[in-house]
């Protein structure tokens, strides 16, 4: 019960922050006011019960807290007070839905401004758009709370000092600004879906937050192809999540996943979004559309063996031509092996920069070629690098199986 309450308060808090930032004209002050309102709700509601209109309660409390902070800080906040819309702050009613949506878009584009460092954009999005605490933000981005607090402070200072505007870009500037926004949403999902190391494979909460943000962005900009493609990609990936780990928390490879456990409703939604996104794009597909198309290809196949691997290789080739990356090249090599055999897969691995997952793929392909000794060596190389605990256990299991074949 308390967890659900905390979740509601966090999401509502993040929702009202965007409007409060515009009203007080200062990110830090608005964050502090919402934080105080959220803490007040968590303190009072368990005793008094949730008020009939929690959103109104939080909005009015946050406005009062903002006025309190402005008064408390006196002369130091005189400048902020000049910029603050005190009339709006002392109003008893809620802003109309359209105003809230415009403010949310403003906040999204400010957090994802290209003048901010990419890591800072992700951190600020987690803090302000998802309403995570500094400690939670630090945990998601694998750093400590003090370092995260410092980074967030520097980021807010840059926004204030360099006057990054609190504004939705003009239509003409959207194509230049949207990729940074989409990259933040995608990076967020990836940080929850495939953390570099650590005890669990999937951090449920972060993926859920990323999907929520992707839905928000798509609902705010329904006619833009890129947010639709990002949402499609996230939903098609998310649909497979229940089958990615077994009840004991062990990794289940795509080949062994129980496809009945994939979420058919999410797949349907993802496929429809991808189609709609592709219809809006003339010419070259963007990286999110191509990644979503690859995920869609898997989602549509009834079995691993029945997958159209040649089509997947073709999509990876297109993806690498618009957005080259080591991770995509590695996945392409896996698809090549499925389409044309392990020897072709090993050839495709050649030019890809090695890392723990590269060694793991190589080990698998060597084993399939019957070269168990070399497979054991490659698995040992993979285990020397950073893997999540379930990946590590999987790799150790495979290495033991291959080693057993040698004797």
């Amino acid at each position, binding site marked *: 019960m308390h967890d659900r309450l905390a979740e509601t308060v966090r999401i509502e808090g993040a929702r009202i922050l965007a409007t409060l930032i515009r009203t007080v004209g200062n990110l830090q002050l608005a964050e502090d006011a919402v934080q105080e309102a959220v803490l007040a709700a968590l303190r009072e509601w368990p005793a008094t019960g949730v008020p009939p209109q929690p959103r109104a309660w939080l909005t009015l409390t946050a406005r009062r807290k903002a006025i309190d902070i402005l008064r408390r800080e006196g002369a130091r906040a005189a400048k902020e007070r000049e910029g603050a819309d005190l009339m709006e702050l002392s109003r008893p009613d809620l802003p109309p839905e359209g105003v809230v949506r415009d403010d949310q878009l403003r906040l999204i584009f400010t957090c994802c*401004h290209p*003048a901010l460092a990419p890591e800072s954009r992700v951190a600020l999005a987690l803090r302000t758009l998802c309403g995570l605490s500094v400690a939670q933000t630090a945990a998601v981005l694998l750093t400590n709370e003090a370092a995260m607090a410092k980074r967030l402070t520097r980021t807010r200072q840059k926004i204030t*000092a*360099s*006057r*990054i*505007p609190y*504004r939705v*870009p003009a239509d003409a500037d959207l194509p230049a600004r949207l990729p940074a926004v989409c990259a933040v949403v995608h990076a967020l999902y990836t940080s929850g879906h495939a953390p570099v190391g650590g005890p669990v494979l999937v951090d449920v909460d972060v993926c859920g937050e990323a999907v929520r943000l992707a839905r928000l962005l798509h609902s705010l900009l329904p006619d833009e192809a890129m947010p639709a493609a990002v949402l499609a990609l996230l939903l098609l990936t998310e649909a497979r999540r229940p089958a990615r780990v077994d009840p004991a928390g062990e990794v289940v490879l795509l080949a062994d996943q129980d496809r009945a456990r994939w979420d058919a409703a999410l797949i349907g939604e993802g496929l429809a979004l991808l189609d709609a996104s592709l219809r809006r794009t003339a010419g070259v597909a963007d990286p999110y559309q191509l990644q979503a198309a690859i995920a869609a290809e898997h989602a549509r196949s009834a079995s691993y063996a029945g997958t159209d691997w040649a089509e997947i290789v073709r999509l990876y080739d297109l993806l690498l031509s618009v957005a080259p990356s080591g991770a995509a090249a590695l996945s392409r090599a896996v698809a090549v092996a499925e389409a044309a055999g392990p020897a072709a897969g090993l050839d495709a691995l050649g030019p890809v920069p090695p890392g723990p997952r590269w060694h793991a793929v190589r080990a698998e392909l060597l084993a399939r070629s019957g070269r168990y000794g070399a497979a054991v060596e490659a698995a040992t190389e993979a285990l020397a690098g950073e893997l999540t605990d379930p990946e590590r256990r999987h790799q150790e299991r495979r290495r033991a199986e291959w080693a057993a074949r040698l004797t």
Partner: protein
Amino acid sequence: MAQYLALTYTADVDWFAPEQAEAVAEYRVFAKENAQHLKASAVLHPTSTATVVRVVGARGGDVITTDGPYAETKEALTGYYLIEADDLDAAVAIAAQIPAAWGGAVEVRPVLAAN
């Protein structure tokens, strides 16, 4: 209104050399087109004319001057413009027209308000 210093980093050239005439003319065009946003500007002699000053220890210590550039880099600070603009987006739009932005790089830094 806010002020931004746009620092130009380009090849370490002597702007007075005849072969720079064409480049200098491009900068003049930029300055003319954006005159109402530019509060000040300067062109610097090449880094070979630079003198580095250090005081040993604390204030009042020995003054040590050394010749030449502080650090040997491919791109050097070769000039600046003081831009007045509403916000960073507006400042960046102006800075993107400075020829250094494609011949090298322009660093845009907000100027601390005087009050």
